[in-house]
């Protein structure tokens, strides 16, 4: 039992801690309460394990609840997300060191108890919609809200126009029930947040390695070369600061390529300031040096890389001198970085939202080639493909009417238009086609759940135009957001303390954490899945086999009136059919309400031999092996045949290898009609500065806020009240701008007023700001702080991936 005790003080107290590493053992939640001895009137109650949702990182948390009130939140040591992404590290050290939470996670209590939260359904009485237009809200009853929304939906469906419903949502909560609703209703237009975030990166790595989201094994790395990412501050996962600084402690060198001296760049051994949108040229020049000097991993390339000769030929003239002119990074420095990267093993290379430019997918791919030619993939300390198995989405069958409208094209054009389309859709295209009316059909109604398009979409004026064209908008949110002000009916949502979710965590091995209601919804409002369920019931939506999805308990098969219980069975079914194979109650009883696969992180998965059993039940096309669907047709890729005939996993690309040259791109076109390039070429991004708009405008994220949705949080607002425009001091001097001056930031699309913040820590050709400020609604704290740069951008997506181009803006600035 010794290793069950997580810390010395717990041992002293004779209490078993939260460190049950073998998660096979079950522990009731009530045991959590005993972990803390009651010592005063403030104490007592239960510490309930759950998962955070202040951002999409879904860190494990423990919530202390006394008399139905949330009192405190602390890290959940049994959930790896707050500790590491590698299983060995988790099993050996998490109990000793304890997990972590970020400032936003600690500020979650202010989100729950935000006094500006929406309490009742609201209906607009002013038919005019626009930025700054008062909707003249009227409180309505839940019954009235449901009746009106259901009748609008019914009218649409009965007219055979179900596809004219747009449904947009957050992507880390209850997506399955929303997606299933859309399917049974009959709209192909369900889209999610991801296309504002990393679908560009997803496309880059899909091309290179057939996997959308490799993760960095920082703790085992000796060299970390990171382009356009701020992982120590924009902590997408809360374990990133620990694993990166621990990697450094264990001898790794950290190099950050970024136009802005982010906190990560400040922490790095080396900050490489670069001209925005030119990272691909830097990567190609590094590849040039590596191949010119024979520093590549020839054996790895021979076995696992396709298209090497074509790539080598392409980078032959991509010299450091060539790249210096493009990137402003000195050639000598490029030479040295290339040598260091290629000769330090293991090394990792990565890119995130710094590639939100028109050339972003090729940029990410070019950066990925550095990992491929040096053999830095799937080894400890490199880029590792996660094995992501958790809850299973149980597919539903639409009825005849729904099937008919589901055949309509997606408003964004879908797979047919975007060569690397992601299932999250393309918001930029949806907004543009709504605004200009050039889409396949005009949508009539939208349900928008926790999405604030006016703040998160590039091209705010376009977005305003698009929203105005909809006949009826329902917004579900905890706050009266800018987008909610365009709604016809606003539904008060729940925070993550008031509802369920299953989180298939982003670590390298299968882990699933439970988010569960720790307090009752404060205003008696339904959780979002109950709202969707209620609509499904009122519309009488059924599956093709007449199964009552929204009434039938998925475990019991019984008709269930109580919608919470109905959803609990839904989750149980997903768990039972998925990898954990346990019920919801059993998950709740696991330490930290987290299911952790004992199989652990696996490296070199591409070399894993496919079992004879699996092979027997597969179908082979050329050298690729696919699993079979029930009808015998090919399903998902599972492996490849090597030249010697052995069947291994390989990479899920057309060649089964890492691809530096993609023949199938030939003859294909991107969404703009431009031919795809078979190589990870460098092409300048489309919008370049000129005499009129001479500066690049970029934006970034920091630990103090999540996107545009946490600015009303009282704790976080105290951390950093707002953000100004960061300008290189020399650039500012030339423009006669002093620190603290109000300046106009102007592009051809609009202008905003910002406070100048002079710094040495930004490229002289670049100005920038933290994203998310400039609310004109949302709440008393958020309103009026800072400026929203979405007004300065066109509504534009990457023509390959559909990624919103948040960073491709040029501006001029002058004193206001």
């Amino acid at each position, binding site marked *: 039992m010794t290793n069950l005790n997580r810390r010395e003080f717990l041992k002293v107290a004779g209490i078993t801690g939260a460190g049950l590493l073998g998660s096979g053992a079950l522990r009731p939640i009530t045991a959590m309460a005993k972990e803390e001895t009651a010592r005063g009137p*403030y104490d007592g109650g239960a510490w309930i394990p759950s998962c955070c949702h202040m951002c999409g990182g879904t860190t494990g948390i423990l919530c202390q609840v*006394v008399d139905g009130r949330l009192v405190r939140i602390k890290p959940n040591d049994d959930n790896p997300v707050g500790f590491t992404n590698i299983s060995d590290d988790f099993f050996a050290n998490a109990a000793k060191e304890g997990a972590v939470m970020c400032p936003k996670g600690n500020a979650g209590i202010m989100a729950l108890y935000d006094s500006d939260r929406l309490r009742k359904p609201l209906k607009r009485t002013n038919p005019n919609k626009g930025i700054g237009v008062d909707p003249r809200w009227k409180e309505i009853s839940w019954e009235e809200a449901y009746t009106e929304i259901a009748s609008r939906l019914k009218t649409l469906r009965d007219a055979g126009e179900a596809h004219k419903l747009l449904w947009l949502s957050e992507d880390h909560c209850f997506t399955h029930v929303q997606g299933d609703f859309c399917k049974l209703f009959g709209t192909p237009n369900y889209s999610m947040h991801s296309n504002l975030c990393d679908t560009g990166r997803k496309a880059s790595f899909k091309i290179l390695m057939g996997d959308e989201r490799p993760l960095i094994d920082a703790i085992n790395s000796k060299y970390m070369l990171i382009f356009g990412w701020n992982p120590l501050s924009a902590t997408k996962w809360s374990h990133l600061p620990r694993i990166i600084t621990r990697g450094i402690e264990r001898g790794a060198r950290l190099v950050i390529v970024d136009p802005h001296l982010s906190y990560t760049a400040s922490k790095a051994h080396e900050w490489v300031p670069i001209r925005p949108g030119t990272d691909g040229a830097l990567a190609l020049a590094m590849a040039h040096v590596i191949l010119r000097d024979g520093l590549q991993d020839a054996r790895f390339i021979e076995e696992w890389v396709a298209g090497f000769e074509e790539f080598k030929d392409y980078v032959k003239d991509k010299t450091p001198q060539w790249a210096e002119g493009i990137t402003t990074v000195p050639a000598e420095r490029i030479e040295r970085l290339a040598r260091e990267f290629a000769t330090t093993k293991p090394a990792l290379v990565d890119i995130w939202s710094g590639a939100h430019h028109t050339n972003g997918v090729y940029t990410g791919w070019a950066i990925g080639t550095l990992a491929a030619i040096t053999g830095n993939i799937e080894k400890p300390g490199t880029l590792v493909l996660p094995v992501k198995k958790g809850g299973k989405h149980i597919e539903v069958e639409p009825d005849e009417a729904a099937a008919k409208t589901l055949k309509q094209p997606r408003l964004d054009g879908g797979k047919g238009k975007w060569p690397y389309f992601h299932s999250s859709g393309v918001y930029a295209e949806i907004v543009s086609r709504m605004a200009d009316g050039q889409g396949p059909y005009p949508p009539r109604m939208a349900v928008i759940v926790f999405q604030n398009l006016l703040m998160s979409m590039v091209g705010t004026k376009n977005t305003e135009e698009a929203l105005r064209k909809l006949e009826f908008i329902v917004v579900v949110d905890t706050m009266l957001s800018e987008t909610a002000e365009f709604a016809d009916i606003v539904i008060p949502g729940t925070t993550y303390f008031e509802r369920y979710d299953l989180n298939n965590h982003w670590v390298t091995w299968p882990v699933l954490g439970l988010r569960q209601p720790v307090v009752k919804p404060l205003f008696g409002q339904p959780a979002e899945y109950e709202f969707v369920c209620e609509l499904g019931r009122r519309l009488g939506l059924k599956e093709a086999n007449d199964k009552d999805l929204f009434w039938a308990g998925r475990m019991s098969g019984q008709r269930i009136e109580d919608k919470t219980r109905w959803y609990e069975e839904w989750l149980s079914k997903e768990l039972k059919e998925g990898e954990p194979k346990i019920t919801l109650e059993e998950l709740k009883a696991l330490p930290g309400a987290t299911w952790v696969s004992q199989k652990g992180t696996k490296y070199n998965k591409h070399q894993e031999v496919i079992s004879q059993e699996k092979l027997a039940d597969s179908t082979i096309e050329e050298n690729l092996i696919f699993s079979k669907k029930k009808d015998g047709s090919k399903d998902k890729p599972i492996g490849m045949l090597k030249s010697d005939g052995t069947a291994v996993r390989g990479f899920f690309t057309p060649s089964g290898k890492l691809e530096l040259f993609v023949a199938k791109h030939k003859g294909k076109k991107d969404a703009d009609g431009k031919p795809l390039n078979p190589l990870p070429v460098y092409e300048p991004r489309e919008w370049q500065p000129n005499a009129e708009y001479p500066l690049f405008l970029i934006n970034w994220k920091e630990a103090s806020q999540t996107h545009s949705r946490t600015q009303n949080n009282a704790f976080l607002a105290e951390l950093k009240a707002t953000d100004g425009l960061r300008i290189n001091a020399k650039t500012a001097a030339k423009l006669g701008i002093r620190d603290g001056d109000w300046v106009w930031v102007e592009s051809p699309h609009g202008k905003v007023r910002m406070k100048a913040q002079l710094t040495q820590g930004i490229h002289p050709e670049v100005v920038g700001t933290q994203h998310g400020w400039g609310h004109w609604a949302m709440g008393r704290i958020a309103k009026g702080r800072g400026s929203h740069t979405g007004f300065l951008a066109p509504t534009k997506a990457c023509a390959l991936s559909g990624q919103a181009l948040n960073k491709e803006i040029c501006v001029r600035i002058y004193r206001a």
Partner: protein
Amino acid sequence: MPTETETPVKGAATLEEVVNRQLGRRAFLKLTGLGVFTAAAGSLPAVLEAATPKLRTQRRYGMVIDLKRCVNCKACTIACKLENKTPPGVVYNPVIEEEIGEYPYVQRRWFPKPCFHCDKPPCTGVCPVTATYKRKEDGIVIVDYDKCIGCRYCITACPYGARFFDFGENYPAHTTAYGQVPSPEFQGEYGLRREGKSPVGNVRKCTFCLHLQDAQGRYTRPPACSETCMAKAIHFGDFASESNGGCITHEGCNLKRLLVEHRWIRLKEELGTEPSVYYTL
């Protein structure tokens, strides 16, 4: 509330004094806004061991903050607010930041700044009503809200800006259930926050979360800032501990060894305040 007060014992050699005397080297570096850092470079395990028994208190709680790990996420700042339910403007553990250098050779650097619970606290002696004092049993410097008259002399006297006046402001959430939960500070003694009632009108500061101690003075949970720290940079513990390294935050971590294996500094060493918070570099 315990009421023992204590004036610093002059001449008692602290851990670091011994180290400095032995090594005899001091380097100075300037930090804008905070005056002078003193760096004591390297140290010897034997010296530290020799120093330990001379510590005056039964327990000597303190911190070793690893600035190589700290990423300026400010989770400590907010975790402290959450744990102690401090009002707006009262921030026990802020992160101080500055930019140095010239493009492209530029850096931002920072450190979290809790109260240092100095061995020779300059803030306690100025209190006209002995409301603020250093606890004999564990070296934690506290303010007795029942005695404090809100004169704020101690705020002026603290060279580190670690003290804050509670003007009685509240977060908007105060009107919700959030306001119906008492602050846990001092074992929840002051109950619900109310206008005109302590700690409103008092001086407030970091208590090393002493409400997380049990009746024997042992921590049942590490102070919130060190528990939540994203990079595991804040090691909190008992420098006088005879066993298991004294660190309460991280099992297997030895506070004294950290000070041997790293270069470290304390802020404004020249003032002779003997902070209990060490920064390793």
